[in-house]
């Protein structure tokens, strides 16, 4: 959508006081690409950020969310890659972007071809069972899974999702085996657990919170380094006796390939500033996210480590990697 020139001019005048890097400033509406449809995790995250940027008056222009769903994120990556050099495009990535191209041979572009800008949040998770399940601790569940290999079931997203990574890591560490059933929508995963069709799931704390309050769900452990404020009586994986790496869902920002260094610095500083604002702090707290800001350089190191671990996990799961 085009914004009249006079409005843009007015907006940039307002924005002049908040301009961070010298030289570069977006001049028209910025497109923010996400890989989910409206209502999906990334879409909601991007729209929340658009609202915060407006409220805190950090961006002189409007941030418009553009949905490029499909191919587990590969379609969105390809779209951003084709915007090579475009100063008015950014994208919100998730861990899926870092995992999916490992298995999709068609992906001509990968997230590693894009320009890393910043990591923003880490989303912790909790491991939940139905309230009337016989398992009181994660040890109970692992014990039951060891006794009946392959009989117990977990609901989750695609095979490269964090849900499955947590399962693979726990299976490797304990030798227990249980089945993993993929559901395309988060709602269906919860419905499968509440209907008693699966035994366990990895779920966002905020989402689990309401089901716990209603007495439908019980949390066995949290996939975190230290206990979340609202789950202070639930052990972390390590405290529950399972010393496996903590895999948070990661969200952050990338930009098209081939943009000048000053543009990267502009975006990096903008998002750093965003993470210092009260709106951001409230948002992170409300959703029980972990503040996970990393600048462009550290993000590269993080991506390397993430890719290596993912490759190992996929191999373990019997999925052929192509890169």
């Amino acid at each position, binding site marked *: 959508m085009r914004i009249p020139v006079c409005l843009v001019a007015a907006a940039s005048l307002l924005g002049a006081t908040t301009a961070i890097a010298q030289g570069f400033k977006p001049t028209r509406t910025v497109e923010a690409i996400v890989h989910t*449809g*409206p*209502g*999906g995790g990334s*879409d*909601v995250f991007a*729209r*929340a950020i*658009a*609202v915060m940027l407006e409220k805190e008056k950090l961006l002189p222009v409007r941030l418009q*969310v553009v*949905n490029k*769903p*499909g*191919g*587990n994120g*590969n*379609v969105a990556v390809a779209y951003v890659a084709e915007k090579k050099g475009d100063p008015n495009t950014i994208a919100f990535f998730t861990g899926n972007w870092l995992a*999916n191209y490992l*298995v*999709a*041979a*068609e*992906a*001509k572009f990968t997230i590693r071809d894009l320009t890393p800008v910043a990591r923003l949040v880490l989303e912790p998770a909790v491991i939940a069972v139905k309230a009337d399940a016989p398992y009181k601790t994660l040890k109970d569940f692992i014990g039951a899974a060891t006794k009946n290999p*392959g*009989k117990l*079931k977990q609901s989750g997203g*695609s*095979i*490269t999702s964090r849900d499955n990574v947590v399962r693979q890591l726990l299976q490797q560490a304990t030798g227990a085996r249980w*089945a*993993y*059933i*993929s*559901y*395309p*929508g*988060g*709602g*269906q995963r*919860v*419905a*499968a657990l*509440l*209907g*008693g*069709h*699966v035994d366990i799931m990895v779920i966002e704390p*905020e*989402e689990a*919170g*309401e*089901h716990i*309050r*209603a007495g*439908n769900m019980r949390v066995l452990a949290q996939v975190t380094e230290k206990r979340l404020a609202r789950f202070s009586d639930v052990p972390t994986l390590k405290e529950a006796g399972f010393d496996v790496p903590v895999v948070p869902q990661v969200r952050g920002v990338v930009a098209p390939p081939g943009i000048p260094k000053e543009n990267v610095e502009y975006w990096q500083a903008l998002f750093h500033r965003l993470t210092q604002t009260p709106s951001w702090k409230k948002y992170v707290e*409300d959703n029980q996210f972990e503040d996970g800001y990393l600048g462009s350089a550290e993000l590269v190191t993080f991506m390397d480590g993430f890719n290596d671990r993912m490759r190992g996990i996929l191999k373990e799961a019997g*999925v*052929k990697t192509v890169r």
Partner: protein
Amino acid sequence: MDILGGLANGFAVAFQPLNLLWCFVGVLLGTLVGIMPGLGPPATIAMLLPLTFKMSPAGAIIMLAGIYYGAKYGGSTTSILLNMPGESASVVTCLDGYQMARKGRAGPALGISAIASFVAGTFGVLGLMLVAPPLAKLALSFSSPEYFGLMALGLAMVVLLAGRSMVKALLAALVGLWIASIGTDLFSATSRFTFGQVELLSGIDFVVVAIGVFALGEVLGNLETREGVQMLPMPRGLLNLLPTLQDLKDCRFAFANGSVIGFLVGVLPGAGSTIASFLSYGVEKAVSRRREQFGTGVIEGVAAPEGANNSETGGALVPLLTLGIPGSGTTAILLAALVLWGFRPGPLFIPDNPGLFWGLVASMYIGNVMLLVLNLPLVPLFAQVLRTPSYILYPLILGVSMIGVYSTSSSLFDLWLLAGFGLLGYVMRKLDYPAAPLILALALGNDFERALRQSLMMSEGSLSILVTRPISAAMLSLAVLVLLIPAFGRFNAWRLRALEQE
């Protein structure tokens, strides 16, 4: 809070002038979005989301919900007038709706679709109000094997959509299933039938195929016969543009059928309005006394699916509001909106926010009345489209098709696909292959496959899980019965012939 008290409270909220205005804005936007093929309610709601932060939560949810159910009213318009389904839920409306238009009965078709939408939409709200919490619990007992049964039942409807040749119908359905399998597999994240094309990783959008095969196929076919030189017949006089009393009588059962099936399917988080519309069309045809006339412009064939896809919205709000579980793209964005406004959707949402829930319910009664009043006068206006000479109408259909497809994906690749499927639709028409089975199989293919594979994962590979669970066994038996319908007919014909010969 008891229901009457809650409802009184709700109407007090919904009748506040500002909320009435938001309700009207919502249903008006919804109607427009529904009429335009392409841009759907989820994208519209997402675009409006930033504006809602300045509104009261009650006004905001009333408006967004209005877009959701309002779009279902508008969805039938292009199906009936141009054979161009704007969304998957109105594909089946093309079958009889467009044939009615060709016979000069576009007005009654549009009118009955508004009336069916109103009746069933209101039924959906009633259901949402009266039985939401217990029904949501019941919906949870549905898991993958049950969804497999439901999808199999839906696919069995192919035999009811077949034209003269059952073999051709089944072949078309197989092609539909194959198209559905293109893209990235959910379970293994590997790609299937993408031929190295990155654009195909996300699969082929349903709307592209439906518009291509139906609308473009129709245009190409008509160009060849040159029949289109003259305009479609259009009776004069306002009365002839609305359904007659006889029409309403014919649709008595369709109203009830669409209302009930739509609502029940809507409550299931894994089903959706497409299967609701196909199922109610199938049921309508299976029990009809003039079964053989379906597909030639029977008014019940429009009323049943149009009712079903409206009643479905009331049903779909049940798991959303009572459990915080969204079943479709639109309910997912509504859930996201509630979260962004600071609510916590979940099992305690209604007890925590009775005013909001009852306000929404009351506004939906009002909204459905507004939609009926809004849509009926539009009928004569839209019917004028058919007065357009074909040398203007056909290019117009081409243009609207392309804009519709491009507006959903902004991808040139999809326009090429549209052209390809237009040709496919033309060839199918020439060779007398029915298009509806292909579209039905494409719409259900993914869910069908997914439910089967999920079931097999649950049972460690044993197919018995599909028949040992009562609900799934019942639906599979029903599916087999439906598949046998044509055999009965043939047996009957053979018996009559045998009798005559004696």
